[in-house]
């Protein structure tokens, strides 16, 4: 039985989970750091508890404190979301030992799949091809450097350095030449240590020209393990996904069948429970290689939800409660695309941006979904990930979905903070995107010297005119409201009453 869920996360994904709890009739608890006190997710929870401490380590990564809050608030389940503690087997174990249901797979499964090396071994044993690669186990800096140098000659160049317990592009480096290896390793280890508290590095061959395709898995305790089709997330910059879609434009029934079967086999090999994602690299030849398994809900889960009609977070809660999953036979319907809106300056090497969200007006209309943790008036700070929102569209065909995405992005207005909206809009006009022939190197290939917007001069004139008229008309000055009754500067009048007549 699950009746009260603590959401051990923040921002957009906390909102997504808290809303699912509300819909499922479950009570919810949010935890928040002091700098999140006004964030949307805090509002959406039935109960919100302040985390003591300043840094992320002291707050959202603080296992002891979070577990204590879960216990004292009487939560009987804990949803970790993604990032933060979502793939920490030790935390999952501590949660379970405290008698609280972990919304996710067993600590054992997280350990096996979360560790890139044992995941590779598990997959190889399940008969799934893996990319040539090696893990460096040693924690000692100098020993690790030596071991990595030796391993690099076996793996071959170009190669990719990854944090063993990483994700989200953190601790990840592409190394094209042996002479760049050492500096890249030092910096990757440092970033990995800061982000995950684990400096172990994993090396693998970089397969160019491949697509990033992943399979969504659901497994319950009643013996059912299914896949919900694939997502393609090839369009990435700095190994961060920016544009995701389902289904994959070039997928064939044969490949989907084989990939789905491999993913289900992988999940079953670790007695998987809940929602998970098995990531593959799909080579132009149609061969695919196991990349990794994410043992948690994924950022891009909405595209799968839109084409399958399955509410994945709701299923997670159902499965955690010990119920069988509710979805029957699946049919993929239409096409869904998600773009990630980042507060970042695409024209300045995609550096994160900060500022107020003076205007935040998302698009509306048919086939549009917005998953966000912010609203107009919020401040974008350097404290957390710069992702502001996920804009997801659905349409009967891929062409129509792209048309809808273009329209939606044109309508999306964010003022006060630089965002990548225009960059995303122009992605929708790239030939590779239109034809579905995207691969993981596309952005670097198309814009080797970075991207910058090039608005027609006429539009710039229009914007300059708008600014000049707005300044002249005094639009920046807050309108003076007529002080009516009840607006006092002194103490509150005892004669103010709420006049309501009941018939």
């Amino acid at each position, binding site marked *: 039985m699950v009746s009260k869920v603590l959401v051990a996360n923040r921002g957009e994904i906390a909102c997504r989970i808290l809303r699912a709890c509300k819909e499922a009739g479950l009570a919810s608890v949010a935890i928040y750091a002091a700098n999140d006190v006004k964030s949307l997710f805090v509002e959406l929870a039935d109960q919100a508890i302040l985390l003591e401490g300043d840094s992320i380590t002291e707050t959202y990564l603080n296992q002891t404190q979070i577990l204590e809050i879960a216990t004292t608030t009487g939560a009987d389940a804990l949803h970790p979301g993604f990032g933060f503690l979502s793939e920490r087997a030790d935390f999952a174990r501590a949660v379970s030992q405290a008698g609280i249901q972990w919304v996710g797979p067993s600590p054992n499964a997280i350990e096996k799949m979360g560790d890139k090396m044992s995941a590779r071994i598990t997959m190889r044993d399940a008969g799934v091809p893996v990319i040539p690669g090696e893990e460096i186990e040693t924690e000692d800096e100098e020993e690790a450097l030596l071991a990595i140098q030796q391993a690099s000659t076996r793996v071959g160049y170009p190669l990719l350095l990854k944090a063993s317990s990483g994700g989200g592009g953190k601790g990840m480096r592409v190394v094209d030449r042996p002479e760049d290896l050492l500096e890249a390793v030092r910096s990757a280890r440092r*970033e990995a240590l800061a982000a995950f508290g684990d400096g172990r590095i994993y090396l693998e061959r970089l397969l160019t020209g491949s697509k990033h395709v992943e399979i969504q898995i659901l497994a319950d305790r009643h013996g059912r393990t299914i896949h919900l089709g694939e997502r393609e997330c090839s369009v990435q910059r700095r190994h961060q996904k920016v544009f995701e879609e389902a289904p994959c434009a070039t997928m064939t029934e044969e490949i989907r069948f084989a990939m789905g079967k491999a993913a289900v086999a992988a999940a079953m090999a670790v007695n998987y429970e809940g929602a998970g994602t098995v990531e593959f690299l799909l080579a132009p030849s149609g061969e695919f290689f196991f990349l990794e398994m994410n043992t948690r809900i994924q950022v891009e889960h909405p595209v799968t939800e839109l084409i399958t009609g399955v509410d994945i977070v709701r299923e997670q809660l159902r499965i955690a409660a010990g119920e069988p999953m509710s979805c029957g036979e699946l049919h993929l319907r239409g096409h869904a695309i998600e773009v990630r809106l980042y507060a970042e300056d695409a024209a300045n090497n995609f550096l994160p941006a900060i500022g107020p969200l003076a205007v935040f007006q998302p698009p509306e209309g048919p086939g549009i979904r917005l998953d966000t943790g912010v609203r107009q008036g919020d401040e974008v700070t350097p404290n957390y990930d710069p992702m502001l929102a996920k804009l997801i569209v659905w349409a009967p065909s891929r062409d129509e979905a792209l048309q809808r995405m273009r329209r939606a992005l044109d309508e999306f207005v964010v003022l006060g903070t630089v965002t990548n909206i225009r960059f995303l809009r122009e992605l929708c006009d790239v030939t590779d995107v239109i034809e579905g022939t995207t691969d993981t190197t596309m952005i670097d290939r198309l814009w080797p010297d970075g991207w910058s917007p090039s608005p027609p001069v006429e539009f710039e004139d229009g914007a300059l005119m708008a600014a000049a008229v*707005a*300044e002249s008309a005094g639009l920046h000055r807050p309108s003076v409201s007529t002080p009516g009754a009840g607006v006092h500067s002194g103490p509150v009048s005892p004669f103010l009453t709420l006049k309501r007549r009941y018939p």
Partner: protein
Amino acid sequence: MHHQFRTPQGPVDVTVAKQGEIWYLGEHQATLEHDGRLRIQLASGASGFATVAKVGDVWWVHFEGYTFCLERIEAGASQSGDEGGLTAPMPGKVLDVLVEVGQLVEAGQTLMVLEAMKMEHRILASTSGQVTGIHFTVGQQVQQGSVLLEMTEDED
């Protein structure tokens, strides 16, 4: 009314005039909507709505799918010149300082490593030259625009 804005291409002078409810800029026209937006009618015949917001001195304008940042230059205000130093592109923390004062560096050489939003950013020398000043040490917080290091350029 006359205004000056800073654009990526340089300062631009804009003079708008109002007749009745309509604002004019040459043959472009604009009217104020009741919700604070502006309806812009361009000389070419194209038209659309502009959404505007002012943050500090900057007018943010969304028009036809583009977002513009137009900093208003106050009449009489001095033009801030280039600092000549290497500045922090964003707020963050200094992770590593790889050079010393007096050191000769090559163009593209990493001088400092910053961490912001859990990502590392390397501060590179834009030209070859000599480091003449280092203003931060490892562990210190830096604000966006802080001058991190100073260096002289090589004369060639």
